[in-house]
């Protein structure tokens, strides 16, 4: 009895862990399954009670229809375009600033760095309204510029923080050696630091893309014309304008199809790139 108890206990423990794992996974995934099922029905099937998990018939054509009732492809392209242009500016200028904070000594450096970190805690709302006024006066409302241009000024405090950690962890001998060879700071930056930081830069690219795909408040404020909307705003536009079609039937099936399609790019990106993401963040964060 006493010898079999640990075995029983460890079997029970494994059983409990698997139970929790699988239960939690179901809770996380089931809304998607429900949405997928709804996206393949018609309004009549949606209102069946009890609901059918596997629709009969399966209406794949809903996935063809969503591209025509709103310019969903256009929304996705716009978001992609904004994300790419923002990331170019963000990664380049954040690396520059991180290099300045990591490898140079100058008066006020630590105070400025703390100031930069403290902006992470500030809600965007204290600058939102004057920024809107500024961009309104510049006639940038209903263009992508307010969403892109600010990224060319150091990007995000988070990116700077992460890259600075990364640069500080690189051995100082490396750039000393380059200095002795007569390389200027720009060359050290471009030819040594940036290539070595690939994993951190890739991680930031993934995070930045996910954030831009998700962003809501700013595009909501700045974008007005339908053909300029981003995915998030476009989905909401679809939900508001198409809550029922001309005949008065609910269009939940189309909303579900559009939700699933617009969730695919970030989810696929994460699944494909999660190893790089974790690697980049671990390399940066673990050794403070």
């Amino acid at each position, binding site marked *: 009895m006493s010898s079999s108890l640990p075995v029983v206990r460890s079997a029970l423990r494994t059983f409990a862990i698997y139970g929790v794992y699988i239960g939690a996974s179901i809770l996380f995934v089931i809304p998607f399954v429900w949405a997928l099922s709804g996206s393949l029905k018609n309004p009549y099937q949606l209102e069946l009670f009890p609901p059918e998990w596997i629709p009969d018939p399966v209406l794949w054509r809903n996935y063809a229809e969503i591209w025509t009732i709103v310019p969903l492809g256009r929304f996705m392209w716009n978001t992609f375009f904004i994300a790419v242009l923002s990331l170019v500016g963000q990664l380049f200028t954040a690396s520059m600033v991180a290099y300045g904070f990591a490898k140079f000594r100058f008066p006020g450096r630590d105070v400025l760095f703390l100031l930069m970190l403290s902006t992470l805690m500030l809600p965007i709302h204290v600058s939102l309204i004057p920024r809107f006024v500024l961009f309104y006066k510049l006639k940038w409302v209903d263009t992508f510029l307010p969403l892109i241009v600010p990224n060319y000024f150091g990007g995000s405090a988070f990116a700077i923080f992460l890259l600075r950690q990364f640069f500080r962890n690189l051995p100082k001998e490396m750039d000393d050696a380059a200095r002795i060879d007569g390389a200027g700071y720009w060359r050290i930056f471009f030819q040594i630091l940036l290539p070595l930081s690939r994993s951190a830069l890739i991680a930031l690219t993934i995070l930045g893309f996910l954030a831009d795909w998700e962003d809501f408040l700013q595009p909501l404020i700045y974008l007005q014309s339908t053909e300029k909307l981003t995915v998030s705003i476009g989905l909401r536009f679809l939900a508001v304008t198409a809550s029922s079609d001309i005949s008065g039937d609910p269009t939940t099936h189309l909303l579900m199809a559009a939700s699933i399609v617009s969730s695919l790019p970030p989810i696929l990106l994460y699944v494909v790139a999660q190893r790089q993401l974790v690697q980049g963040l671990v390399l940066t*964060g673990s050794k403070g």
Partner: protein
Amino acid sequence: MSHRTMHGAPTRESLTARISRPFRLGVLGWYEARWGLFFITPWILGFLLFQFGPMLASVYFSFTDYNVLRPARWVGLDNYQYMVTTDPRFWKAIQVTVYYVVLRVPPTIVGALICAIILNQSIRGRVVYRTLFFIPSITPGVAAILVWTWVLNPHYGLLNYTLDQVGIEGPSWLGDPDWAVPSLVMLGVWGSIGGTSAIIFLSALQDIPESLVDAARVDGATWLREQLHITIPLLTPAIFFVLVLTIIGTFQAFTAAFVSTNGGPAYATYFLVLHLYERAFQSFQMGYASALAWVLVAFLLVFTYLQIQGSNRWVHYGGD
């Protein structure tokens, strides 16, 4: 991970070093300092143009009547006075927001902690589970909201169907003033507990020295006791960090209510930021909306201060 690096030794050391030994720059030092300042110039410009400058303007706007088209007119403290005495929606918005924070934060932290602890067990297929847990947090917010609106549909939704199976008649969730905030809490918790907070906890868990856990096991501690007496106390700095960030984030809730209920029913989900948005961008009361933004900041400061004060009592910083 970052709680360490933010309060960690390097910054404090270099700060004290700077105070005790004032900067004396030689020729080489000036050369280096100039380049350093050059490299951080983009951030300095961005800070002045898009953060500090706008913040000053926002303070000024909050004392004016301003609708963008006509010049701002100074009104002193009128905006703040109107807010606390006359605005029919302000106190409702505060009440709704605080209620949401109180309801939302505990399950988010506890859930993320549980996710991290179970993801930290050595078990086959861990990467798959980690991906499954993480997916809700990278699902675009609006898509998640639309999906949940369908799950919570009072007549044909999954949740009420499931409740019906066990003989419970479900409420109309987002359509019911009493259940609208809990519905948004459910949606928010689903979309966040497997995400960044869980990852922060997970990396803190992986920093716990094996030897401590082994010692506890040799002493015959059960799994639960090990979690309660060793793991969780060692995680308190990470919990504190996540708690502060979660409260700050939750106070700024906007998208879910804006998309699913637009503040209703009967203003049950009328968050402070929704109020701010409507005043600023629907009725163009930029001055009044700026005042609301500063009230939001004041709330965040007070809450964060209280948490820092209270943290001595439960956060254990390691001896390092």
